[in-house]
């Protein structure tokens, strides 16, 4: 009983102990905030990556692709894991160069891109495409058709020419003059639609106010021309064509938004002279957790020399692993704060033990055991740890909850952007508080406080009662 009473009294009367509490509190709060933000980034990124990629993909090892995708899909559906499959879509992925002019006679921009040829209907069922299209109508039913506005812009860019009445020939003497060329007008040639990544078609306004959502400046409007150059499948010959922008793809993942352009599958097949061939089959599963099992089963059907079967996690493995490693490293580094707090406890407790030497002698003269004296100081450390961890948890959760407001305030106060919104295309700092992590951090902090209080407690407990009583 005296241990509890003295722990409580020491806590309330030793203001130095508040330094320990503040250290533990700051350590715990920092760890909770960093973990929540890292976890938020990680889960948001995973969510987006998974949203973009299909659960499983069967890919060709060469750009030439593989023939008869319909047959492949039938084989997949008939395989032992066929019942796990929700939808499939054939696709061509190839590197390409794109060129477009900013404005009517503006600067010519050439840049590399990843050209995806897909069938909009089946790909919409697989997911990771239609939901990221900017035009709401396309989100419902994706298509490469140009909107009326895009068609009008095409007409402005490519005004219709009068149609020649027939083959030109020199007039023979005595023949009547040819008719005037004022009618009829040839129907305009409208280019095929192309969906471009949002970050290709726009750029972020760097002069946006600090902490505010950045504004996008549009370079490519719907209806603008884009020339795509890629390679043929059979022979490495350049093939190219002109397309008209029909929509934007905006996944908020800069890597995708800045590189991907989508064209109709059948047209890309013709352009690349690879009729009835595709480079991959995208598969959506009923249960994404089964991805690894499906991958293994399909890899047994399709030989690895020609086909590679991956899950979405395999494709983004290094990125996901990097996030995990970053988080672990940060945890280790930040846990040092708590260890520093532990050393603070060690120093302050050692001082308190010296200060309380006579009290320790008194307690021993009253019959307190060595273990009893030790438990006063270990209990004191535990109490400091618990109070510090509890306050740190409250502070950490409060900061996490208001992290965007705090970031905006700091950005405004210092004039320095802490969270550049164009890096991740997140307009808000994502957070995800994991209760398990919070508990772990608390346990770690409390354990550290207890461990660092053991040495001073041991010193107090082993003090000779007579020497302690005589201590001046």
């Amino acid at each position: 009983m005296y241990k509890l009473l003295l722990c409580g009294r020491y806590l309330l009367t030793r203001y130095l102990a508040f330094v320990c509490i503040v250290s533990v509190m700051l350590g715990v709060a920092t760890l909770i905030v960093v973990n929540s933000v890292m976890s938020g980034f990680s889960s948001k990124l995973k969510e987006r990556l998974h949203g973009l990629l299909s659960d499983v993909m069967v890919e060709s090892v060469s750009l030439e692709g593989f023939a008869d995708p319909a047959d492949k899909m039938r084989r997949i559906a008939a395989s032992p894991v066929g019942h796990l499959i929700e939808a499939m879509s054939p696709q061509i992925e190839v590197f390409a160069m794109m060129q477009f002019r900013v404005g009517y006679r503006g600067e010519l921009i050439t840049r590399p891109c990843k050209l995806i040829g897909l069938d909009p209907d089946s790909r919409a069922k697989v997911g990771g495409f239609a939901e990221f299209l900017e035009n709401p109508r396309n989100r419902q039913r994706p298509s490469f058709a140009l909107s009326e506005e895009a068609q009008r812009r095409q007409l402005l860019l490519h005004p219709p020419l009068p149609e020649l009445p027939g083959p030109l020939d020199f007039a023979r003497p005595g023949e009547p003059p040819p008719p005037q060329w004022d009618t009829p007008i040839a129907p305009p040639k409208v280019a095929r639609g192309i969906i471009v990544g949002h970050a290709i078609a726009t750029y972020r306004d760097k002069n946006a106010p600090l902490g505010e959502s950045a504004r996008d400046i549009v370079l490519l409007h719907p209806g603008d021309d884009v020339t795509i150059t890629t390679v043929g499948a059979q022979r490495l010959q350049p093939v190219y064509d002109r397309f008209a922008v029909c929509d934007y793809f905006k996944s908020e993942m800069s890597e995708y938004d800045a590189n991907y352009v989508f064209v109709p599958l059948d047209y890309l097949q013709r352009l690349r002279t690879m009729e009835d061939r595709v480079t991959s089959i995208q598969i959506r599963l009923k249960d994404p957790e089964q991805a690894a099992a499906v991958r293994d089963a399909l890899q047994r059907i399709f030989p690895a020399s020609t086909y590679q079967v991956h899950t979405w996690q395999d494709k983004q493995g290094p990125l996901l692993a990097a996030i995990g490693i970053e988080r672990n490293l940060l945890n280790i580094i930040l846990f040092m704060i708590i260890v520093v707090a532990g050393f603070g406890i060690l120093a302050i407790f050692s001082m308190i033990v010296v200060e309380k030497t006579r009290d320790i002698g008194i307690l021993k003269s009253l019959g307190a055991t060595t273990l009893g004296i030790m438990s006063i100081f270990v209990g004191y450390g535990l109490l400091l740890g618990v109070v510090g961890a509890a306050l740190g948890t409250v502070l950490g959760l409060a900061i996490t909850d208001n992290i965007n407001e705090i970031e905006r305030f700091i950005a405004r106060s210092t004039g320095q952007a802490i969270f550049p919104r164009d890096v991740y295309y997140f307009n808000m700092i994502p957070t995800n508080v994991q209760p398990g992590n919070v508990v772990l951090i608390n346990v770690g902090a409390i354990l550290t406080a207890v461990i660092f209080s053991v040495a001073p407690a041991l010193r107090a407990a082993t003090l000779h009662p007579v020497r302690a009583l005589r201590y001046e």
Partner: protein
Amino acid sequence: MLKVQNLHKAYRRHATVVPVLAGVDLEVAAGEFLSIIGASGSGKSTLLHLLGTLDRPDSGSIYLDGQRIDDLPPRQRDRLRNQKFGFIFQFYHLLPELTALENVLTPAMVGYSLCGYWWSRRELRRRAIGLLERVGLGHRLSHRPRELSGGEMQRCAIARALMLQPPLLLADEPTGNLDAHTGGQIIALLRQLNRDAGLTIVMVTHNLDLVAGTDRVVRLVAGRIDSAPVSHRGADHDYAGLHQRQAG
């Protein structure tokens, strides 16, 4: 009640050995109020600490009610200090964070388990308040030691020493830090406790004026009990005689 045989104790620091007690033999009867006098550094406090199992002798033995106590394991010695001995110190040694009442309750908190204390808390509190009232501090229950005078602190320390009703009170210069009048009050209180409750008291002091009311006075000289009778004529005279005998 208490018997000491050929007790030796020396303090060592590196190669230097300072002998303090060199064969003390002493017996204290139950209900006796014994004073041990001696000059500063004569080993009075060391003897008291050995009697109270706060320290271990180099050799010799101490018996309490016929049972040897100097060689008991630490846990039993702790228990003994809690149950059988009440300590009073020159500098009161109250715990500054606790109130007078909590200080008096401390031996009970040490001796009882958490549950035991919780179950008996009302009875213990009643007893502690009774003790504080008995020593004249009934109105100072919630006062911290720093809010009490020297005499009040010592009376509080006496109440604490009596909390678990120990049969033996060990007082180390209980009036050493008090003026003559307050010191007299403390001695009178101890005398009263000795008479009324039959409490055995062993008090060490260097002040011969305080020992008049005690049952027996023994003198510690050069680490031994001097068998010569002690006069109550005054400290200066008596110590002069002690020094002459030591020189001889």
